[in-house]
């Protein structure tokens, strides 16, 4: 994904929810948006978002609240056969 973020591995956001932080991210790197989000603006199915060590699916999804020092990770599914 770094070729869409000017090779930056991390991004500081002031968004106070996962949704707001993702909007902040794709608003900054617009080419990244097509990689992360589908036509409906939802996160692509092969990606997971973690807040700390917790999948947001086990929290409040994209409405999960973020504190100032929370680390949010966007993780691609790695699999094969």
């Amino acid at each position, binding site marked *: 994904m770094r*070729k869409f973020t000017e090779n930056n*591995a991390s991004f500081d956001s002031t968004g106070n929810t996962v949704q707001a932080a993702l909007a902040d991210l794709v608003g900054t790197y617009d080419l990244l948006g097509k990689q992360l989000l589908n036509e409906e603006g939802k996160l692509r199915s*092969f990606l*997971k978002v*973690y807040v700390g*060590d917790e*999948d947001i699916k086990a929290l409040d999804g994209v409405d999960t609240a973020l504190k100032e020092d929370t680390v949010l*990770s966007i*993780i*691609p*599914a*790695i*699999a*094969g*056969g």
Partner: protein
Amino acid sequence: MQITSKAIFPGINLSEKAKKIIFEDAQKTYPHECCGFFFGKQIEGRRQITEVLVVDNSVQENRARRFEITALDYMRAERKAIEEDLDLLGVYHSHPDHPAIPSSHDLAVALPFFSYVIVSVQKGEVNHWRSWQLDEGGLFAEEKERHNK
């Protein structure tokens, strides 16, 4: 179904240390598939692999034909890359008793940018390995082994 193309990538070099770790994992895990990450630097497009992170195959069924890596292990790999000032350049896995050619399932779940090293293990012994990367058209093209001068 077309899986591979003739696109050309600059090549990949696995250090002897990296090969040893990957091959040992492939043999130890046989007859199941092993998996892990590798790290290094990309110089003029050519990938120099120096470090490996072995992880568990988290798939529960058909482990001889499938692998999955957990999100937490992926985060470990990203952290290792940052801490050691290396790039996370790809994923390896083994093909027990099959050649090191990507399957249609490999293609269906592959990500761009990553190198996919596949190790063929025949009757418990490493037979050969090959590396693949998605081309612009979304097919796997081979990334040839290039030895350092």
